[in-house]
């Protein structure tokens, strides 16, 4: 439990009706339902408490927060007693003092009296409360029955559970249930035997615990405590910053002793996470100081040479000279760059600026190419801009939640918890996914509809749902007529009503029973508020862009756009996917999604940057790789992306990298791509960055430097140095100056500055004169493009089909404890949960191939093969296999193909025809 945050004891009430009470002689007016404890805390008349904390519902068990209410008998608990009009409350009386001291004495009588040597000394609510009630002695000896010899569970790599220090306040149990929604903890036993236990009475590591840290955060004693605090001591200073893992973009307080990070604590004021966290953001930050970090620049003439450590000046000159030589010999378009969704907006912006202004080409792309580029295309076509429509809080108003091709509890866990809370409150859930993801069935959450479609048939399923909406007469005519382009709607309506789009006609294609589609369509269309959340299971298909537009059509047709509880929401994979796209990383767009051929937009940048920019689009990543193999593209600057592991058809990627004369890798580690690099420029971890990230809800959050860059240079500073060496200086003094330029040139960012973010915490773009504090929900009055555009979306089967030779369909994904290619999480203790990629295979498919659970298998596609262990799973249907891509040793992307989305070239990671055979082992 951190002692730094103000805790009001019980959650805020949101009702409009107000009540006025008097507490200790002070008047206060609060929303009806507000507890006496919270009202008192708002008056700074804090009442002693142990079992209460303001992110959990009041529980009323510790009996420390007793108060007196004039005209009422007894001493009710202030946490469970709501304020009522005219109530007069006294929180400090001799009677209350005596009662509280007595309660506290009983707690302390069964608690180790080792405060001075306790790891929570100075950071313990029990200690604080003993002081607050004036406890000076304990009359009960430790000779009676007690729990002081209870054992300690140290199985979790990040925190301990010391039962001897537990006061059984249930905060951990309630945090696991209410905040995280995992229900991994319980109170076992009765009376004096009552004790916190995992639900299966196992150790923490073996339990259902997902190590989100909510229980540790909630614990008022040293019972549940971070091992890093036990090892290093209680932190002495703090810096607010933003997590660098997934697209939820959680706000954290980095707590340090000197320059040593002790722990990351989720920020209650964080707009995205409201005080919650997951195992990655909370605990898996050890990679930042891992021994594999490279902190000196290195160069080599050839990729067969050894690396040579050099000065920054030499590395930068070497890189610039090589790039200029390539352009002199092979043309200005023979080089390019790739920006990273793990880097800040400011770092990304200067890379794309360097490519366009210093390199003189639009050959800049971003790793969003391989994840959410179809979102950019599809939402721009239909709504007018490339962004999710809602803030995360919107899910609390959803009546029906439609999750398509996403696995929020694993890939976006903090939002997943928020979603599960709404589902527990009664929202209906539709899951469209080949896999039975956790949301389909987990404690207190069960999907009413699971459309377990065949991989590659997303568009067919959503078209079928839309067919039902149209033919059953469930179109929101008023919304369509007022808000949408009616001609495009009519064309779409005619198309979607065709019999070939009916659930019955498509049942054979999708594998989803027509009745199930019809029920799901009715649930969504008749919901009141229907909200769509989707992930890479939508975008990473040959029809990824078509599918995004199909979902947008469905949302518009049912009027589910432009208010809380609805919308079309991409769950972005990496922390700054949204931002890297916003910053002009795509080869056809400047910052703010303006096409390079737009003379007006280009003129702005020409003037601001003092160069004549190109108006023709540059190459996308796959175009660059194809051109490299053809000998036409020979130099690449790669910022924080490992394309030799993350991109599909690795053999092709490696051939392209080998064919280049200059590959520059800017990263924390010598990643797989660095094997083909000539220049290695050490990057900065999120703890060393100064800038901003933009999360999946368009929220711009500050990333503040917690420690100085280990390499001695900021990443944007390195990019600027290369640009200057190429002949185009970019003389910024601070990251704030870069954001100021972004704001000047990007209408949706016009009001954004570090000053504003430091003042208000975060804002969601558009943030400008029309919306000075940002825009939580888009398209409320009108679409960004004016009228919503319906797009006709015929289902076109992928060319990647199962055959006699490759009869199974492989789909890939992520798990909770690992992140992307694992460069960060593999260098943390998260490997205890996932040390290798595993192939999930249905028992029937396994039996037919002689494969048993845990066996090594070889998995082959038409482009390659690899080996890993198999796990029998009924989460997937027969005919489908599933694995992750977190480990380079298994090289999952050796087998994925270069099939891609028709509009954006986003790889079709989610469908690869494969065969699986028993294998003797990893190296056989």
């Amino acid at each position, binding site marked *: 439990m951190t002692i730094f945050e103000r805790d009001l004891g019980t959650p805020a009430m949101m009702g409009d009706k107000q009540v006025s009470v008097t507490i200790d002689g002070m008047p206060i007016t609060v929303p009806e339902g507000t507890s006496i404890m919270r009202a008192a805390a708002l008056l700074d008349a804090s009442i002693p408490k142990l079992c209460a904390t303001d992110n959990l519902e009041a529980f009323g068990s510790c009996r420390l927060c007793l108060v007196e209410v004039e005209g009422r008998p007894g001493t009710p608990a202030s946490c469970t007693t709501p304020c009522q009009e005219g109530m007069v409350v006294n929180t400090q009386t001799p009677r209350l003092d005596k009662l509280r001291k007595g309660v506290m004495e009983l707690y302390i009588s069964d608690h180790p009296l080792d405060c001075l040597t306790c790891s929570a000394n100075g950071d313990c609510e029990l200690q604080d409360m003993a002081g607050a009630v004036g406890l000076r002695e304990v009359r009960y000896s430790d000779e009676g029955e007690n729990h002081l010899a209870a054992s300690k569970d140290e199985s979790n790599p990040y925190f301990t559970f010391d039962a001897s220090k537990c006061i059984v306040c249930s905060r951990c149990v309630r945090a696991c249930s209410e905040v995280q929604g995992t229900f991994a903890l319980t109170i076992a036993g009765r009376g004096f035997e009552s004790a916190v236990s995992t639900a299966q009475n196992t150790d923490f590591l073996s339990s259902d615990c997902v190590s989100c840290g909510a229980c540790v955060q909630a614990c008022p004693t040293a019972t549940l405590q971070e091992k890093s605090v036990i090892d290093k001591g209680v932190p002495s200073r703090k810096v607010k910053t933003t997590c660098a893992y997934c697209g939820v973009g959680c706000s954290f307080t980095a707590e340090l002793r000197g320059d040593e990070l002790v722990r990351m604590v989720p920020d209650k004021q964080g707009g995205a996470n409201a005080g919650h966290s997951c195992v990655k953001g909370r605990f898996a930050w050890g990679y930042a100081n891992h021994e594999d970090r490279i902190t000196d620049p290195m160069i080599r003439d050839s990729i067969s040479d050894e690396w040579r450590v050099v000065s920054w000046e030499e590395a930068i000159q070497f890189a610039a000279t090589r790039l200029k030589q390539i352009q002199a010999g092979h043309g200005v*378009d023979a080089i390019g760059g790739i920006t990273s969704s793990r880097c800040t907006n400011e770092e990304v912006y200067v890379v794309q600026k360097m490519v366009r202004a210093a390199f003189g080409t639009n050959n800049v792309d971003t790793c969003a190419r391989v994840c959410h580029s179809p979102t950019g295309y599809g939402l721009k076509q239909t709504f007018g801009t490339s962004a999710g429509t809602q803030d995360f809080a919107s899910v609390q108003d959803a009546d029906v939640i439609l999750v398509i091709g996403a696995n929020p509890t694993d890939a976006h866990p903090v939002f997943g918890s928020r979603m599960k809370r709404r589902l527990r409150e009664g929202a209906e859930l539709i899951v469209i996914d080949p896999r039975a993801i956790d949301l389909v069935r987990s404690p207190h959450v069960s999907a009413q509809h699971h459309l377990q479609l065949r991989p590659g048939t997303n568009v067919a399923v959503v078209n079928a749902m839309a067919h039902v909406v149209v033919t059953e007469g469930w179109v929101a005519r008023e919304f369509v007529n007022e808000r949408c382009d009616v001609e495009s709607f009519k064309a779409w309506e005619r198309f979607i009503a065709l019999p070939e789009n009916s659930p019955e006609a498509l049942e054979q294609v999708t594998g989803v029973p027509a009745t199930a589609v019809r029920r799901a369509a009715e649930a969504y269309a008749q919901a009141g508020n229907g909200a769509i959340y989707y992930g890479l299971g939508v975008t990473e298909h040959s029809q990824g862009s078509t599918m995004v537009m199909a979902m947008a059509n469905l949302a518009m047709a049912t009027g589910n756009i432009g208010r809380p509880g609805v919308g079309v929401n991409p769950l972005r994979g990496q922390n700054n996917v949204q931002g890297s796209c916003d910053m002009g990383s795509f080869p056809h767009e400047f910052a703010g999604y303006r096409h390079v051929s737009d003379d007006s937009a280009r003129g702005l940048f020409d003037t601001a940057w003092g160069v004549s920019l190109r108006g023709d689009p540059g190459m996308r990543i796959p175009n660059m790789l194809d051109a490299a193999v053809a000998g036409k593209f020979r130099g690449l600057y790669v910022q924080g992306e490992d394309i030799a592991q993350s991109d599909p058809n690795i053999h092709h990627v490696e051939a392209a990298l080998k064919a280049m004369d200059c590959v520059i890798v800017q990263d924390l580690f010598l990643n797989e791509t660095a094997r083909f690099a000539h220049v290695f420029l050490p990057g900065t971890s999120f703890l060393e960055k100064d800038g901003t990230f933009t999360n999946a809800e368009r929220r711009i959050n500050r990333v503040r430097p917690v420690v100085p860059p280990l390499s001695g240079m900021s990443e944007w500073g390195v990019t600027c140095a290369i640009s200057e060496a190429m002949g185009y200086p970019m003389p910024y003094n601070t990251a704030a100056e870069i954001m100021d330029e972004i704001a000047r040139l990007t209408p949706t960012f016009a009001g954004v500055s570090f000053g504003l973010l430091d003042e208000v915490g975060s804002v969601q773009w558009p943030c400008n004169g029309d919306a000075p504090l940002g825009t939580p929900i888009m398209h409320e009055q009108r679409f960004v493009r004016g009228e919503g555009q319906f797009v006709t979306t015929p289902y076109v089967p992928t060319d990647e089909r199962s055959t006699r030779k490759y009869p199974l369909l492989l789909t890939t994904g992520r798990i909770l404890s690992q992140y992307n290619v694992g460069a960060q999480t593999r260098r943390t203790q998260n490997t205890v949960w996932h040390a290798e990629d595993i192939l999930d295979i249905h028992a029937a498919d396994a039996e037919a191939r002689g494969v048993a659970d845990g066996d090594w298998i070889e998995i082959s596609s038409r482009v390659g093969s690899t080996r890993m262990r198999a796990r029998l799973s009924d989460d997937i249907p027969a005919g489908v296999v599933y694995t992750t891509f977190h480990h380079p040793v298994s090289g999952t992307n050796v087998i994925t193909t270069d099939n891609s989305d028709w509009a*954006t070239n986003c790889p079709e990671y989610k469908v690869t025809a494969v065969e699986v055979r028993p294998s003797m082992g990893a190296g056989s």
Partner: protein
Amino acid sequence: MSGVVEQDARLVVMANQIANNVPPVGDVSEQVAEHLRKFWTDAMRADLERITEQSSDQLREEVIAAVALLA
């Protein structure tokens, strides 16, 4: 397969895929041409034009018509 041949093959696949997926509303060739203008480099469009002249049988007719519109 040489790198150039491999790149040509990719362009053919991509162009045909675009023609097969743009909304079948209005002039598909014009939509394909517009897509190529907005998202393909000048060099890629020039390569596609060369491929069209050399071996148009690999390409859908909408792509061939789109290339003509680009000229």
